[in-house]
């Protein structure tokens, strides 16, 4: 009996040792890297969160179906896990703690600024690199420094990247100088309005009243704010919100017959917005972030966005749908990590992120760019508008950097 027990113990130890020596999954020489996504999968920004996750899942599926990719002589595959942050700080904290407990190697998200700000210190303490999609300035500024989140990066624009070219376009091209601003009362809304105001005032424009910040989520009727805008003496409106809000604002803007210029965030380029508002959005301006080459443009493209076209084709071929900016967050996260791993020759999270932050440029769905030491993507956006119910790209990504220069890389990190 004693011999039999001993045999079981020996077998158990042998299996455990073998398990420790084997790669995590996928057979000999194959390493699986788990990327966790903290995204709003339910709640007010569920659609955006689900599309971001869908982008990551398709990118991983295609990479894994192709047999993975080579890193330092080994084959690497990705695995995606996700947690719902409900686009709230409390939900963000819960999602972050769950992903830490699941021992993910990297994190993508959140899409929502308030949730991302809540998550940042948690991932920083766990030394898990975070690839952020939200726009609040502090995520690559004061909040990042305070959290010690040196492994976090923002893969897309921050508020200044979006609002600087838009404000410049309003003043220098459309001659709109007096603005009435409305935004959701969140870190996102306040950051966007603040950055727009900074450039507007620098170029001689002004807000005719203090911005109106409405409750988010929950506001669906904007007629009262728009009625105020109508009587404010402004010559244009700046409206910042998520897609559902922007549909409401746009339709009610038309209902009330406001004769003002209209400027919004890049949510105006969302296909759902285009479907709902259609020709009623004619003459509305927004910062364009994602360019898959389909929209008509009023300039000659200087730099083809290879990854955007690749992603676009992948979505059409595999999911029979047009890819969006939201898909680009998840897809971009996976391809950023892949490229950094290949170049660095390791999957070690700290070394991979040092490579990301080295200033080297990466091919991503929002363009080819590198990252600044504060974690901000050193990327630019152009300005688009609706013409005959179609998104039309008016000026290219270099617009903010042309004289008068309203945005430089130095503006994107805290001084």
């Amino acid at each position, binding site marked *: 009996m004693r011999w039999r027990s001993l045999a079981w113990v020996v077998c158990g130890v042998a299996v455990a040792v073998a398990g420790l020596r084997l790669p995590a999954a996928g057979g000999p020489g194959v390493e699986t890297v788990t990327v966790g996504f903290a995204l709003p999968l339910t709640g007010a920004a*569920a659609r955006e969160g689900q599309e971001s996750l869908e982008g990551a899942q398709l990118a991983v599926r295609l990479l894994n179906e192709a047999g993975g990719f080579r890193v330092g002589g080994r084959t690497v595959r990705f695995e995606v896990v996700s947690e719902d942050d409900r686009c709230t700080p409390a939900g963000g904290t819960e999602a972050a703690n769950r992903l830490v407990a699941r021992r993910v190697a990297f994190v993508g998200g959140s899409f929502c600024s308030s949730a991302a700000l809540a998550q940042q210190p948690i991932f920083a303490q766990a030394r898990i690199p975070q690839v952020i999609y939200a726009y609040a300035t502090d995520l690559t500024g004061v909040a990042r420094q305070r959290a010690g989140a040196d492994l976090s990066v923002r893969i897309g624009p921050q508020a200044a990247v979006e609002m600087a070219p838009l404000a410049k376009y309003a003043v220098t091209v459309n001659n709109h100088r007096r603005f009435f601003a409305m935004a959701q009362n969140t870190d996102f809304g306040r950051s966007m309005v603040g950055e727009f105001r900074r450039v507007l005032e620098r170029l001689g424009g002004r807000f005719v*009243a203090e911005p109106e910040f409405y409750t988010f989520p929950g506001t669906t*009727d904007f007629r009262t704010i728009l009625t105020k805008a109508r009587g404010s003496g402004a010559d244009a409106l700046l409206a910042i919100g998520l897609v559902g809000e922007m549909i409401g604002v746009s339709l009610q803007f038309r209902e009330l017959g406001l004769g003002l210029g209209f400027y919004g965030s890049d949510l105006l380029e969302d296909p759902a917005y285009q479907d709902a508002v259609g020709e009623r959005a004619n003459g509305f301006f927004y910062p364009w972030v994602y360019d898959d080459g389909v929209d008509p443009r009023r300039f000659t493209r200087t730099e083809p966005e290879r990854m955007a076209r690749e992603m676009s084709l992948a979505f059409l071929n595999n999911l029979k749908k047009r890819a969006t900016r939201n898909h680009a967050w998840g897809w971009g996260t996976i391809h950023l990590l892949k490229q950094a791993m290949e170049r660095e020759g390791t999957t070690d999270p700290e070394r991979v992120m040092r490579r990301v932050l080295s200033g080297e440029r990466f091919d991503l769905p929002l363009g080819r760019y590198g990252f600044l030491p504060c974690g901000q993507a050193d990327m630019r956006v152009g300005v688009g508008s609706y013409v005959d119910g179609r998104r039309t790209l008016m000026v290219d990504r270099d617009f903010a950097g042309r004289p008068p220069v309203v945005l430089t890389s130095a503006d994107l990190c805290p001084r």
Partner: protein
Amino acid sequence: MRRAVDVVTILQFGVNGLFVATGYALVALGLTLIFGVLHVADFAQGALYMLGAYVSFYATQAGGVGYFAAVALAMATGAVLAALNGGVVYLPLQRHGGSLTFVAALGVLLILQNAALWWFGGDFRLVPSPFGDGKFSAGGVVLTHHQAFVLGATGCLVLLLWAGLRYTKPGKALRAMAQQPEAARLVGIDIQRVGLLAFAVAGGLAGGAGALMAPVRAFDPHIGAVVILKSFAIVIFGGMGSVPGAIVGAAVVALAETFTAAYLAAEFADLVAFGLMIVALFARPQGLLGRLPT
């Protein structure tokens, strides 16, 4: 900051406020009816509002049904689902205490909301209005044809409800249940049947409200949670169980919200609904037009 003080602007604020009130009133009426008769805080009515919007969307876009028929279909769907929910979930649980129905109502709301997210997706939808972009404009005060239709339809539904409660036998049974439940039982009123009727009427109103608002407010599966919270605050402010209280409460809260946003700041507008609710609880616990239990 420049203040809008001209009469046209004030009138426009008033029109905006009344329109907001219609959205609240129908859901609040259903809530207060159910609470008055059965003492159930049916948060799932929010989900029926959302489903009403989706029914009108799919009926008009995929089913080729006209908008007005789609509103009727949304009301019927809301009525059936509410009665089903009442019969299967609330009435059996009610025997074990009110707190159970409260938790169950929240559960049903979340289940329906997430089921809708899974089934319909998170995309925002908008139902094309049969009135197009037409609008009335008088001296700068704008009211779209669809808004006018919603105001009229809400008025008709409120009148129908009032007449039904006052002059029909089932309506009288509902009122009897709300006012003197024990006496109602003693005179042979079927509590189960009257309860199901209350759920059906409330569900019909919620579904109808969702369909009426679907062409003017983009919606997704979470729209109901937003609507129900405010409607619940209105019911408490107006008086739990009071039908006139729900209507007056909706008008007061909506107008107060609107004028707060107009003359103070939009960020304080939502505080008004809940602020009024708290004030009502302190100053008049039975609500504006409610009655204290005897």
